[in-house]
C-alpha cells in the first residue's frame, strides 16, 4: 500500500515529517507524513506544470479554503495546505483503510445493508462538500476509503490537473470513465448532480462488484455512459430505484445529496465495524494495525537527500513505533511505555509538566486504554495550544499488565518522576486497587474514570479518585430504566461469576431494586465460574416464565445468552452488564443481539446536542478522524478536570514548583462541569451520586442495527415518558 521514500523526496513538508510514498500521478506525489504530535497525514505535493500555473494556484488556494469549511465525519479533513509554496501541497488526515475498490476486489460485493449505510454516509459527505461550494468531480470506489465507523471520501475537488471543462489533450476526461456523468463526458462543467451520478455508480459497483457501465476502453465507457442504460444486476427494491434515479441521464432528474441522505437515513454505525461484512472489517482492522507500524523517521537522518531512508529496519521500527521496554525493579516486571507524542514547542523558560496515563495491556482493557491515552493527548494538546499558558504539558503513557506487581511498578515509575503532576488511571480494577497505595504514599493525585470498585480508598484515602459510578449503582439504574420505560415485569437475573466480581455488585442491586422498590417478581440465579452452567440457568428462568432478562456475565456468555433467548423467541426487555458497552456484542450476537440494553455512565457525545458535546466531538474527529469512542468522554473529562485543578496549584511566581499534595485537596472539593456530567467526589473520593444529577448522567444504549445506539440519559427518557403520559 506504500513504498519507501526515494532519495529525491523531501524529508519534511512544513510541519509534516514524510515517512512513505503512498502514490504518484501526473500531478505530483502523495506521501504519508506524521505531524509533530504524532498523527498520520496524507500529504499531496503538486509537481510539474500545475505548480507553475498562477491560475491553478489561485484555484487551489480557493478550494483549500472551501475544503477547510467542510466539517463532516465522512469527509477526510484538511489539516493544512500551502498554495504559495514552490510546490503547493495539501495535507489531510490519513485513513489507513482499504478503498471500496480494494474491498470489493478482495471480498466481492457488499451486502445491501452495508451499501445502504455506505450510500447514506457518502451522501452526507457529498452534501457537506456541495454546501461548501465544491464539486468533488471524482467520486469513485478508489476514492472511498473504509473505516470501522464508516466510509471516508477522499481527494475531493482540489488539486486536480485540469480545469472544469472538457477533455484533456491526451484524450482523458476529467474524472474516471465508468464513474463520470454523461454531461461531464460531453464536456459540460461538472455540477453537484454529476457527483450524484458518480455516487450511483459507486453504490452499483459496491452492490454488484462491477461498474454499471462495464469496464474496458475509456472511449467505450464514455459512450455507454451517455447512451446505454446501466446494468444493475440483482440490486433490488428501494436501493435499486434510488441508484436508478442517481444514474438518470438528465442531471435535473437526479436526487440531491441531501435527498439520498434522507432516503438512506440509517444512522451512523458505531466504531466496531459491525456495518461491514466480517471479512472486510478484518481487512480494515489489519490496515489500521499496519499503519501503527509506520516508523518515525528522525529528521536529522533524512535531511540529507542522499541518504536512503526507506528501510529503518525492524529493530528501529519497533523502537520508533513508540514502544520502549522498561525493565521493572526486583519483581522482574516489565512495563510498556509509549513515547511522548506531545512535544510542545517549549517557549523560553516555560516549564514542562507531565500528565501520566496509567493503562493496561490485554484485550479486555484495550479499548478503554486507548480511549484514555487519546483523551489525555487531546486535553494536553488543547492546553499547549493556549497562547498565554505559563507552562507546557506532556503526556506519558505507561501500561501495566493487569496484575498487582506491574500496576505498582507503573505507579512507582510515575511517582519517581518529579515532572509528573497527575495521573489519569489506572483503567482496570485490580491495578486501581493496588497502585492506589503507591500513588497515595507519594502524594500523587490520580483519577480512574473506568473502574467501579471502591476499596482503593482503604490504602489511599487522600490522592486516589474514581470518576465513574460503582458497579452496584449501575445495577440499580437498570431497574430505574425499566421503571421509566414501563418495562417492570417479572424478571430473571443471572449473575455469571465468570464475568468477575462486578457481576455480583451489579446483580445484587438489580435484584434488590426489582423486588423492594419496583415491587415486582424477580428470580435470581448465580452461576458458578468454570462450570458452563449458564445455559441451564437461562433455560430454567425461561421455564419459570420471566418476562424480562438481565444477564450479567462476560462477553462470550452474554452473546450465547442472546442467541438462546432469540432461539426461544424471547422478546421481553433484556439487559447486559454495563462493562459490555462498546464491546463486540452487537457484531458477535448479530440479529440475536438486537434490542438488548446497556445502562452505563459512558456517553456517546456524538449524538448529544449540547455545545460542549459538539465541540468535543468535533475536536476528537479533527484529531483522530472518528467520533469519540466509548469511554473517551469520561477519560477526557477526568484529564481535563485534573489539568484544570492542577493549573490552580501552579504558583504564580517562577522557579517554584507546584506542590503535589495541593491537587488532591482541591480535587476533593471540586465541582467540574464535563461534557455530559458534573463531577464531584463523595467521602471515599468516589463518583458522588447522592445528588439528583446522575439521572441525566446515566445513559441507556440499545443494540440496534448491529451497533450500540444511545437512546438518551435516564433523565431524557423519563421526561419523554412523562410528556407522553
Amino acid at each position: 500500500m506504500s513504498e519507501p521514500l526515494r532519495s529525491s523526496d523531501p524529508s519534511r513538508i512544513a510541519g509534516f515529517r514524510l515517512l512513505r510514498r503512498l502514490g504518484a500521478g501526473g500531478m505530483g506525489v502523495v506521501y504519508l507524513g506524521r505531524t509533530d504530535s504524532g498523527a498520520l497525514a496524507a500529504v499531496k505535493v503538486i509537481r510539474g506544470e500545475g505548480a507553475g500555473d498562477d491560475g491553478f494556484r489561485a484555484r487551489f488556494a480557493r478550494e483549500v479554503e472551501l475544503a477547510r469549511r467542510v466539517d463532516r465525519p465522512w469527509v477526510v479533513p484538511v489539516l493544512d495546505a500551502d498554495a504559495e509554496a514552490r510546490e503547493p501541497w495539501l495535507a489531510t488526515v490519513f485513513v489507513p483503510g482499504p478503498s471500496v475498490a480494494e474491498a470489493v476486489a478482495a471480498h466481492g460485493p457488499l451486502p445491501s445493508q452495508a451499501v445502504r449505510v455506505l450510500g447514506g454516509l457518502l451522501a452526507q459527505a457529498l452534501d457537506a462538500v456541495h454546501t461548501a461550494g465544491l464539486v468533488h468531480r471524482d467520486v469513485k470506489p478508489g476514492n472511498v476509503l473504509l473505516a470501522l465507523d464508516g466510509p471516508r471520501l477522499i481527494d475531493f475537488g482540489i488539486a486536480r490537473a485540469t480545469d472544469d471543462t472538457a477533455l484533456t489533450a491526451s484524450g482523458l476526461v476529467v474524472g474516471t470513465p465508468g464513474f463520470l456523468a454523461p454531461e461531464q463526458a460531453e464536456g459540460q462543467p461538472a455540477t453537484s448532480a454529476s457527483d450524484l451520478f458518480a455516487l450511483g455508480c459507486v453504490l452499483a459497483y459496491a452492490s454488484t462488484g462491477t461498474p454499471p457501465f462495464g469496464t474496458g476502453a475509456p472511449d467505450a465507457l464514455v459512450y455507454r455512459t451517455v447512451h446505454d442504460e446501466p446494468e444493475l444486476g440483482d440490486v433490488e427494491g428501494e436501493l435499486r430505484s434510488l441508484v436508478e434515479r442517481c444514474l438518470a441521464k438528465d442531471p435535473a432528474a437526479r436526487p440531491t445529496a441531501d435527498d439520498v441522505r434522507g432516503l438512506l437515513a440509517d444512522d451512523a454505525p458505531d466504531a466496531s465495524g459491525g456495518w461491514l461484512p466480517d471479512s472486510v472489517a478484518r481487512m480494515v482492522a489489519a490496515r489500521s494495525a499496519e499503519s501503527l507500524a509506520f516508523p518515525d523517521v528522525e529528521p536529522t537522518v533524512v535531511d540529507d537527500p542522499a541518504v536512503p531512508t526507506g528501510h529503518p529496519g525492524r529493530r528501529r521500527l519497533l523502537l520508533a513505533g513508540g514502544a520502549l521496554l522498561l525493565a521493572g525493579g526486583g519483581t522482574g516486571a516489565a512495563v510498556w511505555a509509549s513515547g511522548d507524542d506531545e512535544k510542545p514547542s517549549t517557549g523560553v523558560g516555560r516549564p514542562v509538566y507531565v500528565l501520566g496515563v496509567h493503562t493496561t495491556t490485554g484485550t479486555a482493557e484495550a479499548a478503554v486504554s486507548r480511549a484514555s491515552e487519546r483523551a489525555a493527548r487531546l486535553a494536553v494538546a488543547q492546553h499547549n495550544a493556549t497562547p498565554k499558558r505559563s507552562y507546557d504539558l506532556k503526556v506519558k503513557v505507561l501500561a501495566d499488565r493487569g496484575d498487582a506487581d506491574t500496576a505498582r511498578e507503573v505507579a512507582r515509575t510515575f511517582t519517581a518522576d518529579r515532572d509528573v503532576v497527575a495521573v489519569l488511571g489506572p483503567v482496570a480494577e485490580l491495578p486501581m486497587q493496588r497502585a492506589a497505595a503507591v500513588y497515595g504514599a507519594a502524594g500523587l493525585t490520580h483519577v480512574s474514570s473506568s473502574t467501579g470498585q471502591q476499596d482503593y480508598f482503604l490504602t489511599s484515602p487522600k490522592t486516589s479518585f474514581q470518576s465513574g459510578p460503582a458497579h452496584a449503582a449501575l445495577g440499580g439504574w437498570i431497574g430505574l430504566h425499566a421503571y421509566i420505560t414501563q418495562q417492570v415485569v417479572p424478571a430473571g437475573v443471572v449473575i455469571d461469576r465468570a464475568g468477575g466480581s462486578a457481576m455480583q455488585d451489579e446483580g445484587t442491586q438489580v435484584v434488590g431494586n426489582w423486588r423492594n422498590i419496583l415491587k415486582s417478581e424477580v428470580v435470581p440465579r448465580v452461576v458458578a465460574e468454570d462450570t458452563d452452567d449458564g445455559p441451564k440457568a437461562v433455560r430454567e428462568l425461561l421455564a419459570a416464565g420471566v418476562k424480562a432478562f438481565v444477564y450479567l456475565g462476560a462477553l462470550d456468555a452474554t452473546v450465547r445468552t442472546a442467541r438462546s433467548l432469540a432461539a426461544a423467541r424471547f422478546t421481553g426487555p433484556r439487559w447486559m452488564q454495563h462493562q459490555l458497552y462498546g464491546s463486540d456484542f452487537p457484531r458477535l450476537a448479530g440479529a440475536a443481539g438486537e434490542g438488548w440494553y446497556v445502562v452505563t455512565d459512558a456517553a456517546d457525545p456524538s449524538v448529544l446536542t449540547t455545545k460542549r458535546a459538539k465541540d468535543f466531538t468535533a475536536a476528537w474527529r479533527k484529531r483522530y478522524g472518528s467520533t469519540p469512542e466509548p469511554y473517551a468522554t469520561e477519560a477526557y473529562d477526568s484529564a481535563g478536570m485534573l489539568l484544570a485543578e492542577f493549573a490552580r496549584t501552579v504558583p504564580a511566581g517562577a522557579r517554584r514548583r507546584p506542590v503535589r499534595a495541593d491537587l488532591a485537596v482541591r480535587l476533593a472539593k471540586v465541582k467540574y462541569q464535563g461534557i455530559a456530567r458534573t463531577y464531584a467526589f463523595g467521602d471515599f473520593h468516589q463518583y458522588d451520586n447522592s445528588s439528583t444529577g446522575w439521572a441525566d448522567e446515566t445513559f441507556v444504549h440499545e443494540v440496534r442495527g448491529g451497533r450500540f445506539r444511545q437512546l438518551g440519559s435516564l433523565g431524557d427518557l423519563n421526561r419523554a415518558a412523562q410528556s407522553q403520559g
Partner: protein
Amino acid sequence: MAGWRPVLAVAAGTLLLAGCSSGSGDEPKAEGTPKKSSGASPSASASPVNEPYTLAEDRAPRTRAEAVAFVRELTVRPDYFGTGYRKRDPFESDPAEWAVLGEDCLWRREGLPDTVLASLTRMYELPAKGGKGPVYVSLTVTVHQDVVSARRDMAGSLEEALRCPEQQLNATDRVRGLYSQADAFTGGRTVISDDDLTERGNWVADGGKAHPFDWYKFRMGPVTVAATARHGSGRTEAEDSTVTTDMAKGMTFVAASIDSRGKAGDASATAEPTEPKGAGQ
C-alpha cells in the same frame, strides 16, 4: 508476609459495608494471624505471597469415611475466634447432614446430597460480659465430591442471599438485609482462599432488637469453610467490627490448617477410617 491478607480483606469488607469513613493504615498488622509457612510443607515458606489457601483435588478426601475423618480431625479451638470464646452445647452437628435453605426461606437440616461427602458444624459462644451481649459463632467445614461441586455450592450461597433476603435460621432467629460480596482468587483482589464470600446483615431473635450478622465462606479446592457470627447487644460499631474481624481470623486459622494438611499430603492418606454415625449414608 502471608499474615496481611485476612486482615486487609476483612477490613475492606467491614469498612466499606459499614460505610466507615476513616481509612485504614497501609500495612495491616500481621499479629495474631496464622503464618502461611507454618505447615509441614518445606516449600510453603518460599511460596509467593499471592497464593490462596487451597486444597488440591487429588489431596482431598475421596470417600465419605475419609471426609468425615477429615472434618473431625480438624482442630478448631474456641480461642481461634478471640479471647473468651467457649464451646457451646451441643458442640458438633451430625456430619451426614447439612443446612438447606428451603423455598420458604427457612433453614432446615437435611441429609447430604450426592455431591457432598461430609459436613460438620461446630458451635461457639462468647458469653455475655460487662453489658455486652453474647456472640454466637458457628463454623462449618464441608467436603464436596469435587471442585466443581464446591464452586456450585459457593454460587448457591450467593443465590440464597438474593433469593431470600430474609431467612429464618430456626424457630426464633431471623436474619435480614443480607448483602453479599464475593472475590474469587482469580479476580486477583486481596483474598484468603480460592473464593471468598462475605455476607453481612442483621439478625433478630424473637421480637428483640436487630444486631449484626456475619456470614463468611471460603472455598479451598473441593472444601468449603463457612462461619456465622450473631452479635449480641451493647457493642459499638468498632467493637462489632472487631467481632467480625476475629471471626474471619478464626476461619483463616482453619483455612491455613486445611491448606497445610493438603501440602503435607495427609488430607486423605492418613485419615483414620473411623465410622461415625451416618457416615455411610
